[in-house]
């Protein structure tokens, strides 16, 4: 008996199964998306619980213009990824490359904007002094993610820090774009100095986890979509139908990433 009595192929990788009307990868991907709904659902549930349980909930902490820009970027990429698939269905490989490439570039733009937003948070500081003053603002030179402990642990800790407080939220100087005069605060006077990371409060915690996990999914999408734009696209010339299915399925994943953002954006930026 030969080791391979007949060619071992997995049925329905390309042609759909008659009674379900699906090929395997499409079912598989929808199942994966169902699990992702539960993953982000748990995080949204946590958000609700943390917000309802909080005495005060910080609002308007994030740049609405940048968030809206990122939303448009993802919407455009959603359209371009569908166009890429449609191009393949019309056997236009050149168009596919264009649309797929556009999707990847838009995704990279999303990550760039997000990195900028994150950087902004990690160079924004909260200080508390011994006399009970609490201020938020920036440090001279915009260092990344300093903390009091790290400053004190330096071999030559500075005697003082130069702090640019934010404009106050209320009062006569409210809303002004210009910071008030920089303050020189002696290091010994400081009780707390921390950047606006996930430790700042539960809003920032859930913000970083939600957007961070989402960004990881965007990065994953970039890798997959980029692979199919590049080396993976060779399959078009040997198994075009199977390749088209892969693009469809990758597109479904990408739409899901956009779906999550459609809820993330209002939840974190707008409400």
């Amino acid at each position, binding site marked *: 008996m030969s080791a391979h009595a007949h060619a071992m192929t997995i049925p329905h990788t390309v*042609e*759909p199964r*008659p*009674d*379900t*009307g*699906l090929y395997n990868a*499409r*079912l598989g991907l*929808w*199942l994966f998306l*169902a699990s992702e*709904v*539960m993953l982000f*659902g*748990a995080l*949204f*549930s946590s958000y*609700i*619980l943390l917000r*309802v*349980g*909080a005495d005060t909930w910080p609002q308007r902490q994030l740049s*609405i213009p940048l968030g*809206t820009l990122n*939303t*448009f970027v993802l*919407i*455009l990429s*959603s*359209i371009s990824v*569908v*166009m890429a698939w*449609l191009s393949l*269905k*019309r056997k236009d490989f050149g168009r596919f490359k264009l649309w797929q490439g556009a999707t990847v570039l838009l995704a990279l733009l999303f990550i760039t904007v997000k990195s900028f937003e994150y950087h902004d948070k990690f160079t924004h500081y909260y200080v508390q002094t011994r006399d009970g003053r609490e201020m938020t603002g920036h440090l001279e030179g915009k260092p990344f993610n300093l903390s009091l402990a790290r400053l004190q642990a330096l071999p030559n800790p500075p005697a003082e820090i130069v702090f640019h407080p934010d404009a106050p939220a209320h009062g006569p100087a409210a809303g002004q774009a210009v910071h008030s005069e920089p303050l020189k605060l002696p290091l010994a006077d400081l009780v707390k100095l921390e950047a606006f990371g996930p430790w700042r409060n539960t809003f920032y915690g859930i913000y970083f986890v939600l957007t961070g996990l989402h960004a990881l999914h965007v990065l994953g999408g970039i890798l997959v979509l980029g692979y199919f734009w590049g080396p993976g696209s060779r399959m078009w010339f040997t198994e075009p139908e199977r390749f088209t299915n892969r693009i469809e399925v990758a597109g*479904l994943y990408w*739409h*899901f990433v*956009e*779906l999550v953002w*459609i*809820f993330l*954006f*209002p939840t974190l930026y*707008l*409400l």
Partner: protein
Amino acid sequence: MTTPVEPRAAPAPESSARRHKLILAALVACTLVMVTLALLPLGTGLKVALVLTVATLEAGLVAGVLMHLVEERKLIVSILVLTGIFFVGLLLLPILSEVDHARHFFK
């Protein structure tokens, strides 16, 4: 067993280009409506309800049209409905047990 189904044929180019332009416009419009609503001086409860309704509508467009869910097989849709039920349970039940707490949840 149901009768076999045809694999999805590619739609005609012109109608699909128009369709996608419409979707793009609709999605952009929804986003702008959300941002506007958020900037209006409304009560928190009302604002949350309205903004999330628009978000759900926008998500429905992406899921239904771009992900082809409106024409997807019953099997897939039923899996998603099942997921939706558990998703709602996950969102609602913890907060309901906070509301019905014998003492305050967080203190």
